[in-house]
């Protein structure tokens, strides 16, 4: 095994290959970034309507709850195949990259919506009442009163979800998106030792994911120090934090 790895090392570690890996890394990261940003925006809109007290919006609210509950419980792999075949059946010939982005968006929306809702709930009821007394409308209440306070609860778990989605997009290789995992498979297929190919892939994922995780911890600590709440208040970050994937 080791002589094999050594023999292939000078074939494998070339500038062209490094460029290939870097491009794959860019694809992996951009899928996660696009998906999570869109997901975040959609989640904010979703929770805004979901927590609306209007009776007329009740069916919409039920639909949104169903959306969140269902899409948090479907594996990414199954979801990406569903999106792929559904878009094809509907006649859109989307590039595979965008299929993966849409899948991340659908999944991220469901997961982040739960966090945003926890953020809403962390803001005390009296704040809503006070806003009502000030004759704020619903949008102004959320935008000017609730969201500025909910940020500290929303950002840290949302960021850890982003890191999770960076890893989750490795499954997009299964539909043929040329990201890190697919590149590793390519190298393995042309005869490079799996230790080299998948080992490089593991190292690259680790090099992205670990600093991001550390950065997330730092954000969390900073926010906690800055917005320390009085003793006995509920914890800043809800204990219930389902992870979207491995």
């Amino acid at each position, binding site marked *: *095994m080791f002589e*094999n790895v050594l023999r292939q090392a000078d074939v494998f570690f070339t500038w062209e290959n490094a460029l290939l890996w870097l491009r794959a890394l860019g694809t992996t990261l951009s899928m996660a970034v696009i998906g999570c940003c869109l997901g975040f925006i959609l989640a904010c809109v979703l929770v805004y309507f979901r927590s609306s007290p209007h009776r007329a919006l009740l069916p919409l609210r039920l639909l949104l709850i169903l959306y969140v*509950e*269902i899409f948090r*419980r*479907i*594996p*990414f*792999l*199954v*979801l990406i*195949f*569903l999106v792929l*075949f*559904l878009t094809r*059946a*509907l*006649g859109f010939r989307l590039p595979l990259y965008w299929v993966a982005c849409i899948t991340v968006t659908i999944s991220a929306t469901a997961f982040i919506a739960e966090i945003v809702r926890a953020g809403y709930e962390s803001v005390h009821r009296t704040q809503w009442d006070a806003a009502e007394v000030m004759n704020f409308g619903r949008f102004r209440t959320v935008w000017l009163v609730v969201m500025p306070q909910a940020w500290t609860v929303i950002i840290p778990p949302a960021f850890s979800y982003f890191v999770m989605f960076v*890893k*989750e997009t*490795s*499954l997009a*290789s*299964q539909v043929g998106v040329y990201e*890190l*995992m697919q590149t*590793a*498979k390519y190298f*393995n297929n042309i005869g490079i*030792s*799996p*230790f080299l190919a*998948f*080992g490089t*892939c*593991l190292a690259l*994922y*680790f090099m992205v*994911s*670990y600093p991001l*995780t550390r950065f997330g911890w730092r954000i969390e600590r900073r926010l906690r120090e800055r917005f320390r709440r009085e003793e006995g208040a509920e914890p800043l970050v809800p*204990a*219930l*934090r*389902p*992870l*979207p*994937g*491995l």
Partner: protein
Amino acid sequence: MDYTFQWGVAFGYLPELLQGAWVTFHLTFIGFWSGLAIAVFLAVGQLYGGRLLRRSISVYVVFFTNTPSLVTAFFIYYGLPEVGILWSPYVCILVNLVLKASAFLTDAIRGGVASVRVSEMEAAETLGFSMLQKIRYVIVPHVAKTLYAPISNLYIVFILGSALAAIFGVEELTGTAFNIAAETFRTIEIYSIAAGIYVLMTVAASALLALVGRWAFRVRARIF
């Protein structure tokens, strides 16, 4: 839209899909709970072990929590035959799940133990508790309560995460769906049914875990 849905054909394959769901169930059940058993030892090692042991356990945890499950699975599946170990796909995935589960759970357990307050331990000390009594009456109830939510969440995540076994040819729920879809071309219907079974499975698992939590640890767990 030139795709005609044929739900009848797809539902004809329901028995096969349910059989796949059973494989998913025992794959994740064995993988997750044996991962938990290992994680208890690792967490104890990390909390009370020597410097070297602590270091190596945290390297293990950091490595496996920061790499995708799919890549480690590929590494195991293609790497081990190179050194002469030939395992079936099922065993490869199981090993991968155990490694992942033990890493994630070690992190969770350590956090739970760390949440026992010093004052509580001091109170137990003043009451003259022995070490065993301290563990039995102070640490375990406290840790069980704080750990209950992350563990049941992780279990759901592992049920969903086990879908990648399909890529290695294990005939669990997604793998069965792959095969049937390739046979019949009823892709959308088959994958929708598979997704539905996943939703039902995870809801059932959440409900069961919530019941166990209420009964054993008096945790007010929510299912949704």
